[in-house]
C-alpha cells in the first residue's frame, strides 16, 4: 500500500525525522491560507506547492512549483496544479488526477542526497542505500553509475547500529558541511529505521535528503510503502491514510470481496485459482494468441476456497471491460472442488446473461462431476481438456474460428 508524501512526512515527524514545515490543502482557498500561515510562521514568503499523487517524478511532470511571491502566487500555482492530469514516468500516458496539494516552506539548501531503505529479499534484511546523486531518478543512478550508491545491511536482531549510519555519512561527505552534520544524519537514519520496522514498511525513501546552510539535514520528500501483510497491526491508521482515488476502481472492488485482481489491456478475461496458475494462464493466452491479437484482460486469483458468490462477482468484474471477447476459466481443484466451481460458473452465466464465450478447463478434485454439471446446464460453455487445449479454443473463440 502506498501513501502520499504529506502522510509520510507526518509519520516521519512522529519518529523524529526532521521535515520542513508544511500543510496539506484540498482546495485553492486552503492552499492560499496555508501559504499565508507558513509565511507568518517562517518569516519568509517563499513556499513550494506540491501535487500529492502516489507516483514519483512529480517535479519533472510540472506538479511541483516554487512561489517566491507569497500566498497570492501560491494561489495561482495551486489553481493550475489542483485537478490537473499529472503525467510522470510512473503514471503511464493517462496520468493521475491531482486531488490534494502540500504547501511547504521554501528552504536554502546546499546539497541534495538520496537515502532509502528497502527489504532486501535476497539478503533477508533491511538494506539502506545512500547516494550523493539526490533529487534524480535513483533507478537511473543504479543502472548507469552503480558505484555512486552505497549500501549497508541491517541485522534484524541488533537493528541499525550508529556505526552503519556513520559509514554512510562519511561516504556521502557530510562531515564537510559542519561539525554536527554527521551526528544529525545518524539521528535521522536511526529514526528512519524505526519508521521502517514499527510501521511495517516495505520501502521508505527520502529523495532528496538535503543539507541546509546551517548544517541541518532534512527530508525534503517522503515515499513510504506499507507491507500489505501487516495491515492487521495498523488497521485504523492505514484506513485513515488510504486514498481510494489513487487505486484502480475494479481492483479496489475485487479487494473488498477477497479477490486478487489486476487490470490489463487485453481481450480475454481470466478466472483462475492460485496466483502462479493465474499468471501462467495469462502467459499461455499470450503465447497462443498474441499473433492473432488475443491477449489477457486481467489477472484474477479467486483463491483456494472461493464460493459461488465470489465466482459470480469475479465474472461481473471481468465483464466490466467491454474489450473482453471471451472468458477463460482455469481451475485445478485441490481444496477447491470442481463441482462447486462448475455450479458457480453456471449460476453466474445465468444470472449475468453471459454473451461472450466461456472456455472452461477443470482438473483435480471431483472433475467428472464438475464437467457433468457444465454439460447439463444447457449453456454454451466450451469445455477444454488441458491448458493448451483451452488456450487454442480461446483464440478460436475470439477470432471467430469456433462457436
Amino acid at each position, binding site marked *: 500500500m502506498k501513501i502520499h508524501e504529506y502522510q509520510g512526512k507526518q509519520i516521519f515527524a512522529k519518529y523524529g525525522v526532521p521535515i520542513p514545515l508544511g500543510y496539506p490543502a484540498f482546495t485553492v482557498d486552503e492552499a492560499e491560507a496555508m501559504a499565508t500561515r507558513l509565511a507568518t510562521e517562517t518569516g519568509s514568503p517563499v513556499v513550494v506547492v506540491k501535487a500529492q499523487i502516489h507516483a514519483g517524478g512529480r517535479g519533472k511532470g510540472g506538479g511541483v512549483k516554487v512561489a517566491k511571491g507569497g500566498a497570492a502566487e501560491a494561489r495561482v500555482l495551486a489553481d493550475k496544479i489542483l485537478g490537473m492530469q499529472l503525467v510522470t514516468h510512473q503514471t503511464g500516458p493517462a496520468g493521475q488526477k491531482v486531488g490534494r496539494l502540500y504547501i511547504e516552506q521554501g528552504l536554502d539548501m546546499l546539497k541534495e542526497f538520496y537515502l532509502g531503505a528497502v527489504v532486501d529479499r535476497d539478503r533477508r534484511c533491511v538494506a539502506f542505500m545512500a547516494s550523493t546523486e539526490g533529487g534524480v531518478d535513483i533507478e537511473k543512478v543504479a543502472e548507469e553509475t552503480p558505484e555512486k550508491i552505497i549500501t549497508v545491511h541491517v541485522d534484524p536482531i541488533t537493528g541499525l547500529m550508529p556505526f552503519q549510519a556513520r559509514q554512510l555519512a562519511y561516504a556521502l561527505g557530510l562531515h564537510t558541511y559542519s561539525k554536527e552534520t554527521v551526528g544529525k544524519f545518524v539521528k535521522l537514519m536511526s529514526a528512519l529505521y524505526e519508521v521502517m520496522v514499527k510501521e511495517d514498511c516495505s520501502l521508505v525513501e527520502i529523495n532528496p535528503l538535503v543539507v541546509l546552510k546551517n548544517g541541518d539535514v532534512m527530508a525534503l520528500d517522503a515515499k513510504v510503502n506499507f507491507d500489505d501483510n501487516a495491515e492487521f497491526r495498523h488497521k485504523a491508521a492505514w484506513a485513515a491514510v488510504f486514498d481510494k482515488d489513487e487505486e484502480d476502481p475494479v481492483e479496489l472492488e475485487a479487494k473488498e470481496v477477497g479477490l486478487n485482481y489486476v487490470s490489463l489491456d487485453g481481450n480475454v478475461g481470466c478466472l483462475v485459482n492460485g496466483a502462479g*496458475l493465474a499468471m501462467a494462464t495469462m*502467459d499461455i493466452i499470450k503465447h497462443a494468441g498474441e499473433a492473432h491479437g488475443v491477449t489477457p484482460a486481467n489477472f484474477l486469483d479467486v483463491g483456494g476456497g472461493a464460493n459461488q458468490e465470489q465466482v459470480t462477482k469475479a465474472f461481473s468484474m471481468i465483464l466490466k471491460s467491454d474489450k473482453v471477447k471471451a472468458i477463460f476459466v482455469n481451475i485445478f481443484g485441490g481444496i477447491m472442488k470442481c463441482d462447486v466451481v462448475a455450479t458457480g460458473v453456471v449460476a453466474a452465466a445465468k444470472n449475468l446473461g453471459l454473451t461472450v464465450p466461456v472456455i472452461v478447463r477443470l482438473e483435480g478434485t471431483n472433475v467428472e462431476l464438475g464437467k457433468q454439471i457444465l454439460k447439463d446446464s444447457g449453456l454454451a460453455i466450451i469445455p477444454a481438456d488441458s491448458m493448451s487445449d483451452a488456450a487454442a479454443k480461446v483464440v478460436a473463440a475470439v477470432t471467430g474460428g469456433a462457436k
Partner: protein
Amino acid sequence: MSIIVGKDTRVLVQGITGSAGGFHAKQCMQYGTQVVAGVTPGRGGEKFESSVPVFDTVRDAVRHTGANASLIFVPPPGAADAILEAFDAGLELVVCITEGIPVMDMLKVRRVLETLTGKTRLIGPNCPGIITPGACKMGIMPGHIHKPGNIGVVSKSGTLTYEAVGQLTALGIGQSTCIGIGGDPVAGMDFIDVLDLFNKDPDTHGVIMIGEIGGGAEERGAEWIKANMKKPVAAFIAGTTAPPGKRMGHAGAIISGGQGTAAAKIAALEAAGCKVAPTPSDMATTLRSMM
C-alpha cells in the same frame, strides 16, 4: 526414495483446532501421514478426531509423542511466534502453510533459522507444503493426483505444482518428493536447498523447477545448477505477461525497478543447461524429453 519426509515422519499440527488446520490435518491422516499430536494453546488435554492428543505447547507435544516435524496453520498475527516455538522445541522440519505473514516478522524468523543450520529446516510460509507420494503428505495439496516415482518437483506456486504433478502422473511418471517453497519474499528453504537434496537423492532422477517473477532465487538456483546439478532440470517461469510494479497475488511476485523479470530468469536457467517449458502445459513433456 524421497527427501525430507517419509513413512517415519511424525507430524504435529500447530493450529489443529482451527478450521483450516483441522480440515487438512484430517486429510493428511487419511493419506496415511502419521499425525501424532496437535498444539493449540489453551486446548491441551483435548483429542482431535478422538485420537490425536492436543497439547498447550510444542515442547509438551514433542516430549509426549516424539513428534519430529510440525505443520503450521496458525493465522498471520501468531504465525511467526508459532514457527519460533517449533524451532525452540528442536524439530527437524517446520512447514508453514499460513499466507500473509508480515515481512518484518519473517526477517526475524529467518535470522533465527540461520543459527539452526543442520538442525532445522523451514518450508514456506505461504506454500502448499511437502509430499512424498504414498508415504507422507504434510500440506494442503490434493493427495490423489500424486504417484510414487523418481521425479522431484520444487515450486513457488501451489496450483502450478499440482499442474506439473497432474501432467507427470497422466504420463505415467511418478514423483519422489514434491515441495512448495512458497511465494513470499522472505521464506525458508529456497531452490538451491531443495535442488541440493534432489541431487544427492539416488531415487530422484530428474527435477521440475517452477519459479515466478520477483526476487533473484531462480537466477541463484540457475547458477547453482550450472556448477553442481548432475540430473536433468526442466523449468517453468510464470509471469512473462505480468506488468511491472504490480503484485501478482503472491507477496513476492512483483517486478520492481526492472528486477525479477521472467525473461531474465528464463535466460539464466537456459544458460545453466535447463530446458524451460514454453507453456505451463508442457512442463512434464519438457522433462521427459530430457530423460
